[in-house]
């Protein structure tokens, strides 16, 4: 029965998407379907994490075909952790989107949002659970195609422009991904991670390095690694707040997860990988500096998102247990806090009617204390001040960097501290201008200050920001699990024997 636990997060949202299309004429039905499906995924993810942590990796062979011929779904601790945190985010964003929809349009009946959103979450979950390169590609495409639809909803000229950039960049990485799969298949004749890891060991090291770099490029576009990040701050801010939140929280992190999984299980790096560390350094610095220059709060957060992808790359690039633990903790922390901040700033934008700092009327803290508290906690968390989850993740990362024998690791640890301060500065700027002080003469586009904030939307924000606090509260068990997850990810032979199992 444990096999079903692995299948549910990927298949149940797809089933719900089908049902959602069927019942789109029935009042409230779509909302119930989405809520039940994502809630079930959340419960399933929690059980999966407990089972995996107690009994080790769960492998599901689809159709009973043995790997490497058949498709396998693999859940180890890393996958289970990512699935659980992503499930929390999908539910919170769903709540927010429902609240926003009801607040804007009243309880309308039909919408294309639900089926598409469910397909997106199915793609995200499948990406975490897949055990082969081609299913990873399919999962990415499920996720990206759904995201293309979400970002092109609404017909303003600005959104069409942003969507074009987004779709074309996404497609280019898709085409490169197919090319990569063809190359890998030509070199080894398999796409299963575990099997690939064994076969690639016999392939010429130059060839292996080239494939590894091509994979880094493909994922670099999807995860917005500098210099392949240019599309992200252009396209994310134009989308509605819940869409941006789920993109920022999940899509880039799925890329980071794929990078962790493939570079360890398939390409089996053991030592510090300088290419990745340099990319991490540039990503951290350029993202943070870009954030400081921005005027639009959503663009500022998008640049911070790019910058903080660098932290996870830093942890991965060390290819040590401490570094990887830090990267995993950072990914978990960042998924919740980034999505939460986008949602909170979405509420601020609804309240003030502006996203541009120059047009912010200010004084939000006095008018909406709850909103200000949520933003303050989120901002402090993202910057990594104690005692929240960001601090925990950063300390683990810094310890990994300081412990590495490589000079670059130490340089990156220093850069990570500097970038934290820059992050804090960028967020403090928003705090000073938008939240502090009295209400200045705002020249906001639409005066919405009197509108009541939807309690559903604030609940969604509280859930995500609270998740960051909860992670800090359970820091002990969480780091222990992340530590075990990192150990297992680096222990490639146990992964291989778990997946390929009975054959040897």
């Amino acid at each position, binding site marked *: 029965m444990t096999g079903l636990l692995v299948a549910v997060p990927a298949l149940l949202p797809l089933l719900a998407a089908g049902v959602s299309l069927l019942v789109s004429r029935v009042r409230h039905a779509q909302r119930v379907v989405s809520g039940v499906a994502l809630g079930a995924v959340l419960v399933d993810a929690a059980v999966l994490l407990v089972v995996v942590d107690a009994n080790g990796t769960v492998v599901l062979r689809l159709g009973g075909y043995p790997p490497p011929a058949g498709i396998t779904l693999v859940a180890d601790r890393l996958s289970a952790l990512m699935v659980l945190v992503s499930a929390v985010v999908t539910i919170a964003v769903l709540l927010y989107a429902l609240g926003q929809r009801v607040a804007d349009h009243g309880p309308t009946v039909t919408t294309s949002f639900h089926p598409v959103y469910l397909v997106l979450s199915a793609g995200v979950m499948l990406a975490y659970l897949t055990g082969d390169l081609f299913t990873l590609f*399919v999962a990415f495409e499920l996720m990206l195609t759904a995201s293309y639809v979400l970002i092109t909803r609404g017909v303003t*000229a600005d959104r069409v422009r942003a969507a074009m950039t987004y779709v074309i960049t996404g497609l280019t990485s898709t085409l490169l991904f197919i090319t990569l*799969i063809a190359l890998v*298949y030509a070199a080894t004749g398999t796409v299963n991670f575990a099997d690939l890891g064994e076969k690639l060991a016999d392939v010429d090291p130059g060839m292996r390095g080239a494939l590894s770099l091509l994979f880094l490029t493909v994922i670099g576009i999807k995860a917005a690694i500098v210099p392949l990040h240019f599309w992200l701050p*252009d396209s994310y801010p134009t989308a509605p707040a819940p869409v941006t939140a789920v993109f920022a929280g999940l899509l880039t992190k799925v890329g980071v997860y794929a990078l962790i999984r493939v570079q360890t299980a398939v390409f089996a790096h053991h030592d510090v990988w300088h290419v990745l560390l340099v990319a991490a350094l540039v990503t951290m610095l350029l993202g943070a500096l870009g954030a400081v220059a921005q*005027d639009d709060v959503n663009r500022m957060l998008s640049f911070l998102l790019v910058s903080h992808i660098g932290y996870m790359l830093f942890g991965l690039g060390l290819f040590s247990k401490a570094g990887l633990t830090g990267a995993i903790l950072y990914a978990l922390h960042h998924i919740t806090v980034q999505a939460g901040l986008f949602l909170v700033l979405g509420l601020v934008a609804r309240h003030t009617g502006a996203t541009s700092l120059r047009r912010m009327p200010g004084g939000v803290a006095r008018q909406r204390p709850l909103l200000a508290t949520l933003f303050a906690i989120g901002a402090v968390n993202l910057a990594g001040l104690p005692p929240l989850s960001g601090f925990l993740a950063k300390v683990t990362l810094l310890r990994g960097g300081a412990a590495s024998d490589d000079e670059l690791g130490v340089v990156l640890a220093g850069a990570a501290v500097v970038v934290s301060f820059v992050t804090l500065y960028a967020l403090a700027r928003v705090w000073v201008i938008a939240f502090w002080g009295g209400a200045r003469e705002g020249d906001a586009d639409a005066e919405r200050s009197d509108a009541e904030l939807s309690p559903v939307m604030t609940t969604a924000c509280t859930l995500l920001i609270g998740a960051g606090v909860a992670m800090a509260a359970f820091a002990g068990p969480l780091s222990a699990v992340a530590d075990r997850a990192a150990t297992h990810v680096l222990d490639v032979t146990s992964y291989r024997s778990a997946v390929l199992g009975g054959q040897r």
Partner: protein
Amino acid sequence: MPINTTLVVALAVIYSAGFYLLMQRSLMRVLLGIVLVGHGANLFLQAAGGPAGEPATAGTPIGAVSDPLPQAMALTAIVITFAVTVLLLALAYRSSVLLNDDEVRDDVEDRRIRQAPESEDEPASVISLREDGQ
């Protein structure tokens, strides 16, 4: 594995033509570029599967079968590129309705920030910018 030179040459031509088109401004050309590279990638998958053979259906002797896995992968990739091509077509159509052309545009916000006064990052000057910015 024997390498089919014709396929390799065809792939090189298709990929370079496709990526050249991808670099263009007009969305229609970009679209054609994506379709072209998509075909190239699928062809590449076929080339990766080794020499051609019989289709893998019941009754075909094992030795005569061509590798079915790349074919399955190519089929999936075709479906995906098909779906996204349709989406891009719809986008190009919407763009031509809204903006009267199908050009892929730059983000204006980038340019605006580049031209903004250098002292923008201080809250005090932001307030002054609020005045002269409007």
